[in-house]
């Protein structure tokens, strides 16, 4: 019950934020030059047609009215209709959520697979050459622009070795894994230095805790101590880092989708902004924001799974 109440209160807190996000997106698009109907018609429309189409998409109403009707409709699951594609925004965006989420989750999982062993080694060999190498390697890794990394991976794996496709989404789960390997790896290589740094730091902190010495005094092996005692306690900061970086990850996904031709939300966003497809941009903004907020919520909830103390606070 306590748990449910917590989730509920968090969800309630999300409402004003979501409202603000949508409001800002709305105002922003109002300020931008370019009329979607004109763009759609190639600037060749007569006044009657313009008026008719504006009416059809409700663009003749004041922004405030449109904003609130958007809110009202959105609450009923209706995000409007794309001006360019003439399809419900919920459908257009919905089709792409899976792809973006797949890329990001894939990247995050790869990042954990890369980062976890490195962080464990670095922490266990603290201040030894291996540790320094991992730390400095991480700094170099963190300085690599994702788009550049992506190009290097294309050059190496796509052209040089020919192991992986350099674009597209693929078919079926394993097709996705196969096609999205390089995008996923790009995200992973971008993310893992941050993860290694935070995990390593957290583990070093934990390793200085009394209970770790107690564990050693019990005659436990370093490996057991690492996995049974250190890692779990070090997870919270790492989860925090992951969730804080989710916004960055989404921005990164835009570039990664762009470079690897993945039909996800990022590429849709770039295109929709280009064609001033307001309903799609608004829908995407809402979905992006929800995504970030739910990720943060999930991170908070996972703290509870890791550490019961959080519940009490």
């Amino acid at each position, binding site marked *: 019950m306590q748990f449910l109440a917590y989730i509920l209160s968090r969800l309630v807190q999300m409402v004003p934020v979501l409202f603000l996000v949508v409001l800002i997106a709305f105002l922003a698009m109002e300020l931008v030059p370019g009329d979607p109907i004109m763009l759609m018609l190639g600037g060749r429309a007569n006044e009657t047609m313009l008026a008719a189409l504006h009416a059809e998409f409700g663009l003749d109403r004041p922004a405030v009215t449109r904003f609130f009707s958007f809110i009202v409709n959105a609450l009923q699951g209706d995000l409007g209709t794309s001006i360019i594609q003439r399809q419900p925004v919920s459908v257009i965006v919905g089709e792409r959520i899976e792809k973006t989420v797949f890329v990001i989750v894939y990247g995050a999982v790869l990042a954990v697979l890369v980062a976890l062993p490195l962080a464990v080694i670095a922490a266990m060999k603290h*201040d030894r050459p291996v540790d320094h190498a991992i730390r400095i390697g991480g700094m170099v890794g963190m300085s690599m622009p994702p788009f550049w990394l992506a190009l290097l991976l294309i050059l190496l794996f796509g052209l040089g070795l020919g192991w992986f496709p350099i674009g597209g989404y693929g078919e079926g789960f394993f097709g996705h894994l196969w096609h999205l390997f390089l995008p996923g790896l790009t995200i992973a290589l971008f993310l893992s230095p941050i993860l290694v740094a935070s995990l390593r730091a957290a583990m070093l902190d934990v390793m200085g*805790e*009394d*209970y770790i*010495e*107690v*564990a*050693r*005094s*019990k*005659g*436990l*092996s370093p490996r*057991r101590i690492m996995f*049974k*005692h250190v890692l*779990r*306690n070090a997870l919270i900061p790492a989860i925090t880092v992951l969730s804080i970086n989710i916004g960055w990850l989404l921005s990164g996904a835009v570039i990664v989708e762009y470079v690897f031709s993945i039909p996800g939300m990022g590429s849709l966003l770039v295109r929709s902004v280009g064609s001033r497809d307001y309903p799609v941009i608004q829908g995407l903004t809402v979905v992006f924001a929800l995504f970030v907020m739910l990720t943060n919520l999930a991170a908070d909830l996972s703290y509870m799974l*890791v*550490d*019961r*103390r959080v519940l*009490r606070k």
Partner: protein
Amino acid sequence: MNSNNNPLLEVRGLVTEFSLEHGVIAANADVHIRVRAGETLGIVGESGSGKSVLCRAILRLIPSPPGLISAGEVLFDGTDLLALSEAEMRRVRGTRIKMVFQNPMTSLNPVRRIGDQITEGLSVHYGMGKAEARAEGVELLRRVGIPSPETRVREYPHQWSGGMLQRAVIAMAMAGEPQLLLADEPTTALDVTIQDQILALLLELQERTHMAMLLVSHDLAVVAETCDQVAVMYAGRIMESASTKALFEAPMHPYTVGLMNSIPDMAGTAARLVPIPGQPPDLLHLAPGCPFAPRCVHASPDCAETPIALSEIAPGHHTACLHPERISAGAS
């Protein structure tokens, strides 16, 4: 196995060094102690005197780097622990020598169940199954006086009070019935009312299992009440060691005297407390001789210059003072 005359634990000439940014310090310098089975050795000294380091050195828990045990022997039941492999040493830690730490609030992993932590050593070193370990955990908790242990084994550390946690830590140490218990200031972090309970518990357990105990404390009163033998540490060295009775009746080192004078109940009369003059020692810049010399009222010029070894001045009574005779004079 052990006759009473053969010590269960004998530390000889132990030197533990730490490399710091500006130099190397010896946290333990030429430490000698002995503990027999069933006996309690108290180690007293101010904070920073190397008591805790000694406990960790015995268990080889000194983090390396920066720490290093550079000389000496730790003979446990005739075996030099320093010569064991890491795996063998882990076995010793898990089965024969246990340690109780100062702060119970931080001695337990916050994200794991108390019961699991208590019996973890058992499952690792005795291959105990889950159910068996759980039962043993309940039993251990019962023995250290935790009410309704059946339900409490499942709880997490944040749900327990400090006193209860220290009982849990002791239960953890008692798992597998060790021969030697290193208790590193087990009561310091607790309320005064709880302290006595915990000490009583330790003594009761010791009596029941006939284990040897090393009780580290900065509190002379605690040591006086509980220990058979006492060793006084200063700047990483043993200054004086003797039976509790002998030490308190006739201290043979100026530092011991100073210590006693600075503690309320110890001076007996409690008329006035005399703090030890001067600064605590700077381990980085020690003179070759007696480290206490700069603060010592009885010191002679050569005190600071020649290294002074422990010498037996009465049966079982050792002191590292050049001028023990001046103390008796000063005391009377």
